[in-house]
């Protein structure tokens, strides 16, 4: 753990700089590129409004904000998990030429996606103003929930990074699993009201993404407190998987360069 903290200290600046470089590289081609960071979730929101609201006639209160909140959380989780499986081979030129603690790669990626998520939250705020969502003090819960989202994603990514190196087709499996999780997370429907009794509880308790999306909506839209028990529970799961991830990475990272 001490080694982890020292390494983070040492490479933090690099991770920030390189994350900034990545974002810059994305917009370097054309200055309209950053617009995609906004347009992309916008269009998906419109698609889901169409499917859920018009085709299935299941709308929710503040429906666009409702969907956008779900998408924001989902995009962050999805991007990180998807990238983490292949992150070491994606950084092959670095990894085979220099020693770098491998979780720095995950950290760097999480900065990039976190920045994009912040833009997305900015849009959520705009939508909240447009739809005149009343503000409640519960909105302060936003930050602890965000922290739990970060920790959970980081922890899962670390573990997947390790196995992604040794298992060639883990990427395919993860893509499938993520598809499933996507539909089970209530991004365009409300898990607690749309599903029958035992299933919705099970899903909200066992699927961290569904739980977090639900919690964000509770505090932002409905003025409800999230379940603190579950919130701290998932926080601990996140910390725990981070510790496992760090441990296996420290143990095996020297052989990564031989495999990829």
């Amino acid at each position: 753990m001490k080694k982890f903290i020292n390494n983070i200290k040492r490479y933090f600046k690099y991770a920030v700089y390189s994350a900034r470089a990545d974002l810059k590289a994305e917009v370097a081609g054309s200055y309209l590129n950053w617009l995609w960071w906004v347009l992309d979730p916008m269009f998906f929101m419109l698609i889901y409004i169409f499917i859920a609201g018009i085709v299935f006639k299941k709308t929710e209160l503040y429906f666009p904000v409702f969907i956008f909140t779900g998408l924001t959380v989902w995009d962050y989780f999805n991007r990180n998990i998807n990238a983490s499986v292949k992150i070491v081979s994606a950084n092959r030129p670095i990894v085979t030429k220099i020693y770098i603690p491998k979780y720095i790669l995950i950290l760097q990626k999480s900065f990039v996606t976190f920045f994009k998520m912040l833009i997305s939250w900015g849009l959520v705020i705009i939508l909240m103003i447009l739809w005149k969502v009343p503000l409640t003090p519960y909105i302060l819960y936003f930050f602890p929930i965000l922290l739990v989202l970060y920790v959970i994603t980081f922890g899962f990514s670390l573990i997947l990074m390790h196995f992604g190196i040794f298992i060639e087709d883990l990427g395919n499996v993860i893509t499938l699993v993520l598809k499933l999780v996507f539909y089970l997370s209530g991004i365009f429907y409300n898990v607690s009201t749309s599903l029958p009794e035992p299933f919705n509880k099970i899903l909200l308790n066992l699927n961290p993404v569904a739980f977090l999306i639900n919690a964000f909506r509770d505090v932002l839209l409905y003025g409800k407190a999230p379940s603190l028990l579950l919130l701290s529970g998932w926080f601990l799961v996140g910390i725990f998987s981070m510790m496992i991830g760090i441990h296996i990475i420290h143990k095996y990272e020297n052989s990564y360069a031989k495999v990829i």
Partner: protein
Amino acid sequence: MKKDIAITVDNLHISYRGLKKFSIKRSLFKGKKSSVEVFEAVKGISFTIEKGKILGFIGKNGSGKSTTLRALAGIFSPDEGRIDLHGNSVSLLSIGVGFQPKLTGQENIYLAGMLLGFSEKQIREKEKEIIAFADIGDFIYKPVKTYSSGMYSKLAFAITAILETDIMLIDEVLSVGDAAFKEKSYNKMRELISDANRTVVIVSHSLSTIKELCDEVLWLHEGNIKKIGKPEEVIEEYEEYMAAKKG
């Protein structure tokens, strides 16, 4: 008087063993990898390098030169034995560490420098020197993806040559760029080498380079040290060996 030792390598073994990837499709998670393929690239070599010396590695392809170099750089850990760098900082001089092709050369200087463990301030101090040495004109302000391969390696060489570490590991990059740059980088190498505090390890197939630059030469053969000693002697024997093989 006892000289300072910069690198101690003791009974170094490195093998690429059973680390072959497997896929779920092929083996449905059943048991551990069944067939363990061991390829021992380095089979127990030991040597020490004094501070400020230049050591050259020679040997045919696949004799473990690059593997040893990468182990010295800390990319692999030894499977057996140990490497002690006595607290010296080390960098592997290689082509384009961590370049982000969409960014400009200048931005990539920072990126690569930070990856080598330098602070932003240290890099800023050296930036002008690097740009001057790389000598690629206005291209330094253009994205790296627009570079020719020569310019790419010139920049990479300039970064590692100017951002100095105590130990430099050089893997076959002395033949970089056009004739003028080659001479310049060669001279730069000489200059770096003349610095009494810098220890250098060079891997090269160019025997003339090795002969001229190195204080000592290590001949690796199939993962073992065949001979270590004065450049003239080792290279002479190596040439004889290679000639005999050809004939």
